[in-house]
Each structure stands twice: as C-alpha cells, then as structure tokens.
C-alpha cells in the first residue's frame, strides 16, 4: 500500500523534507514506519516509541494498520499557545 508521510518541526529538520510517499506491505503499522525512520536517522535512536501518531488528520494508536492512501504524520511534542 502507498502511504503519504508528513514531517513537521524537528522531524522535518531531521529527515530533511516535509513529505514523502512510501510503499509498504499490507498489514504495516504506523509504528513499523517509525522503527524504519529510527534505523535511518541516528537523531531518533533514543526515541524507541513514536511520538504521537496521526492518520488522516486524527490521532491514532501507534499500532494502527495503514491503508492505501493514508496520510501518516508523527507528531513531536506540541507547543502551541
């Protein structure tokens, strides 16, 4: 399945871009994508569990299974206000 992956704030700086498309096997969970990101970016090594996870603009559990066309975003600690 193809998923759109969005990066904001510190994650955008670490990954070096704001969005990308990834193709993952059926049954892939959001947390699997996080694990893959951690493996590729040493700045994330310590962050074993993903920050908050959002799919299609709503917060979800990190073990949510991804569907075709989903928009996935990992939400670093928010600091609005």
């Amino acid at each position, binding site marked *: 399945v193809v998923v759109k992956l969005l990066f904001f704030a510190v994650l955008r700086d670490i990954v070096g871009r704001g969005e990308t498309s990834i193709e993952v096997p059926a049954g892939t969970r959001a947390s699997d994508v996080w694990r893959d990101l951690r493996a590729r970016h040493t700045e994330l090594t310590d962050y074993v569990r993903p920050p908050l996870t959002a799919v299609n603009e709503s917060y979800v559990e990190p073990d949510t299974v991804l569907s075709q066309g989903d928009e996935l975003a990992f939400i670093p600690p928010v600091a*609005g*206000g």
Partner: protein
Amino acid sequence: MRLRTFLTDEAIDRQELIDEVMRRSDGALAVFEGVIRNHDQGKSVESIEYVAYKPMAEKQIGQIVDDLGKRFPDVRIAVRHRLGLLRVGESSIVIACSAPHRSAAFEACRMAIDGIKETVPIWKKETGPDGEEWVGWQGSRPSSDQALH
C-alpha cells in the same frame, strides 16, 4: 454556519475577536493573550517560529471550541493562533470568551488555552543567542523521562 479559521499568518487583531463574540446580553468578557517573552527556562529568547500541521490543527481547535460550546452554552468563544516568525512582545494566540456572567467566561477561556496547548499540532522553534531549539523535543527523549517525573 460560516467557515471558521483559527490559524493566521498575520498579526492578530484582538478587537476583531472581541467583536465576534460580544452580544448585548453579555456582562463579561475574558480575553487570554499569549505573548512571546524574552526568556524560557533560563535561556534568552529573541524570536519564536510557529509551524502547524494546518488542516489537523484547524480541526483540533474546532473540536476544542465545539466541546466548550456544549459545556458552556452561554459562552461565545473566538480563537486565533498566529504562525510564522514572531518577536518578543508579539502575540501568538488570542482567545476571547464572552458570557452573561464572569465565571463561565473565565473558565471557558482557561480551558480553551489549556486544551490547545495539550493536543493541537503546533510547534515552536525558539531562537536566542545560544542557538535554536524545537521546544519539547529534547525533554521528550525517553532517557530523560525519569529526571522529569
């Protein structure tokens, strides 16, 4: 219902929000304004850049406003959060709550800012003489959890 927009790239017009909420039946107006200060946790701050996951942030703030509307049916609430580069003294957020009586206006205003700080996907990068930092990221490093709690 008119389309609501809570995020803006422009300076926030406080009076516009007040005009949005005030009715002739209101006897109380509570306004919360978040302002960029020149320090944070012992460090000097010169500017803050706010960014958002815009569509989700709009939805989340809308949800908070709708929930408060149900909880406080007498209160009218307007919220504007600014994004982009802000300097010391500028306002990042204005929340205006009007009500017939003060207690509901105060309470709704307090709950609105607390809710927004807790869940809305907005981030800030502080810049000062010591460099720049995304607020909250280092503190969320799992190994530092024990130190914090």
